[in-house]
């Protein structure tokens, strides 16, 4: 046992310190080395990290894609950070992301838990619910634009709710539509995650709760939700990152309008880089996005203890 004590305790790293002395031995053997992660890491480095580094370099250059890039110092960064449209786009991005998480999380938990039930009709319905995920963003946007047309779509039938139907002419309603359409499109994916996780909850927990006389809602809040913790974090990270980087829906539904009222950062980057061919500024905006999304997901991981979490099953079976 003394040799065990001299080895450095695994404090950093994704491993939680073993609590009980007798399990500390078994907790340490049979661990895979980092070599297991190497193939994926190398592959990823070549096709994602190397280009990202090139983008980082590009953010200090002035380049329109034609001649050779010229060093521009902090010029792009100064322009981007002084640009009122850029500042506004950051707020819009955060707002849309927050809206997405706030709406989609409860919805997909409820739908996922519901779909996890054994009834046959649920299987049929969840197959239908799954379909929006199969559509390309272009198709989704074209469909909703047709459905929300003020003269021929739903608003024309439901005038008491929509008034003149000018949903895309006002900032608040345009943002509402964007949040709604991405909810429509991506909820199935998160539902899938929760459905799987809810299935994995041991029935014995519910049986025990039922014996204790806990009602359905208490069971949901005291057993189901805590058991879904890992999935909530996974799904939230996906939503946040997805929210920060969405742009296809904006491209086809609103084109950032009215004016610049729905110009979110990812769309703004696309506009700068690929409509305006100002690749330097585009690269700077892209980096802001990458950094923001990384910081947010690191915070989520840290706060939730996700990277140290071993198993929600512990002490259960």
């Amino acid at each position, binding site marked *: 046992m003394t040799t065990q004590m001299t080895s450095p305790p695994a404090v950093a790293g994704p491993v939680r310190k073993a609590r009980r002395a007798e399990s500390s031995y078994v907790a340490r053997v049979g661990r895979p080395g980092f070599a297991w992660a190497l193939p994926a890491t190398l592959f990823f480095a070549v096709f994602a990290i190397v280009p990202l580094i090139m983008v980082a370099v590009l953010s200090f250059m002035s380049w*329109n*894609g*034609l*001649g050779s890039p010229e060093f521009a110092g902090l010029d792009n960064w100064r322009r981007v950070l002084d640009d009122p449209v850029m500042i506004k786009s950051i707020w819009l991005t955060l707002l849309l992301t927050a809206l997405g998480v706030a709406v989609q999380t409860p919805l997909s938990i409820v739908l996922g838990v519901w779909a996890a039930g054994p009834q046959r009709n649920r299987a049929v319905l969840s197959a239908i619910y799954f379909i929006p995920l199969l559509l390309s963003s272009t198709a989704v946007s*074209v469909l909703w*634009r*047709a459905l*929300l*047309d*003020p*003269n*021929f779509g739903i608003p024309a039938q439901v005038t008491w709710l929509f008034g*003149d*139907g*000018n*949903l*895309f*002419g006002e900032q608040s309603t345009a943002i509402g539509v964007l949040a709604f359409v991405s909810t429509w499109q991506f909820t199935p994916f998160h539902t899938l995650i929760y459905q799987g996780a809810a299935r994995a909850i041991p029935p014995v927990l519910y049986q025990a709760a039922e014996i204790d006389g806990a009602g359905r809602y208490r069971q949901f809040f005291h057993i189901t939700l805590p058991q879904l913790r890992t999935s909530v974090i996974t799904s939230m990270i996906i939503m946040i990152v997805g929210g920060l980087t969405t742009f296809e829906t904006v491209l086809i539904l*609103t*084109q*950032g*309008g*009215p*004016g*610049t009222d729905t110009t979110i950062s990812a769309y703004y980057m696309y*506009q700068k880089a*690929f*409509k*305006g*061919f*100002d690749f330097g500024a585009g690269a700077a905006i892209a980096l802001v996005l990458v950094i923001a999304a990384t910081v947010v997901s690191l915070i989520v991981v840290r706060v939730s203890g996700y990277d140290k979490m071993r198993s929600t099953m512990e002490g259960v079976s």
Partner: protein
Amino acid sequence: MKTRARWPRLLACGAALALTVSLSACGSGSGGGGGGDDGKIHILVYGDASNKVEKQIVATFNKTSKVKAVLDTIPGADYQQKLQTIINTPQAPDVFFNWGGGSIKPFVKADLLMPLDDFIKDDPGLKDNFLPSVLSSAVLDGKSYGVPMRGTQPVLLFHNKKVLADAGVRPPKTWDELLAAVKTLKSKGVTPIALGGGDQWPTLMWFEYVYDRVAGPELFRKAVNGDKDAWASADSKKALGMIRDLVEAGAFGTNYDSVKYTNGASPALVARGKAAFELMGSWYYAQQQQDAKDFAEKGLGYTAFPTVPGGKGDPSDIVGNTNNFYSVLKKTKHPEAVEKFLKLMYSDEFVKAQLAIGNLPTTTNTPKFLDTSASPAYARFQYDLVKKAPSFQLSWDQAYPPSANAPIRQAVQQFFNGQLDTDGFIKAMQALPTE
């Protein structure tokens, strides 16, 4: 635990399959694409229904030419993006589709394009066989960089004949008649003018015409060449005031920013008599034919844009897409073959094929074949309009370099919905990049 062993095996199978398939894909796909030096000329075009003619012309060319041509298409919306990515690389094409004006200005500045003046000297037909007002869109710094290769698309004022007749309104010849028509139509409960504001570029067409009628083509020509004062001139303010009057008179209704042209919503408003007018490019007719055949043949009227009494612009000036062009890369290895290919753009075969799919070529031999077009009267109306026009202003978003595209569209939308006032709009236009 029966399933336990299945997963690893499945995994192994999947991986093996993936490798096999990717290797075979590798084999079949190699060697394709890109200009490079494969002894062929690569022609890059915007991918859509018009490709039919381009394919046919390439086939005709290949029948007689030793150097073969290959047609590559890029899906529409991202054409310019892809072009900009590859044009300065070995994958660049020899000849490519463009809109003239600002769309090729950056390439000319980067010295990538070949001036066609030598070709023209060789074969004056490459100039003389095309209408001059169209050719000028692809002339930069006095040199010619493009040969027209599809159809011209002037912007016209379309109307629903029945709606106008029911309201006792005649197609307006002047701006005041238009304003009066708006008032009458509104009182009858019809949206006077359909506008696909959600697409932003249909809104821009109103600016292009009103500016041209009020100030003549000179104001915009100065502005696009970098004279920022042009936007602050009295004429500019007058034009903006007229547009403001029209919007405030309720000419476009209240929800135009939620309506799109591209998904067929605004043409449907006109076809179904819910709106009276729509300002749109000449492709509108084909759109209505597809969506509402009866209406297109019997109920759809079209006129030139109303005149503005006292304005400096010639009443027969037009705006729109002058034509699409083929431009040639300087580094092409087969200039003679390219020249031979470009000559086909005024051949009888080309003109007939374009007319057959509803495009209106701008060659001088076009009138001979106008009767073979699907709608001869409409084709002739346009052709005469283009031929007589002293000035054919290329759409603003095409005339400016691509980087100005988004700011222009934002500004016109914001001016319409009141987020920008006259001074705000002028400032936004002055801030546009001109190179």
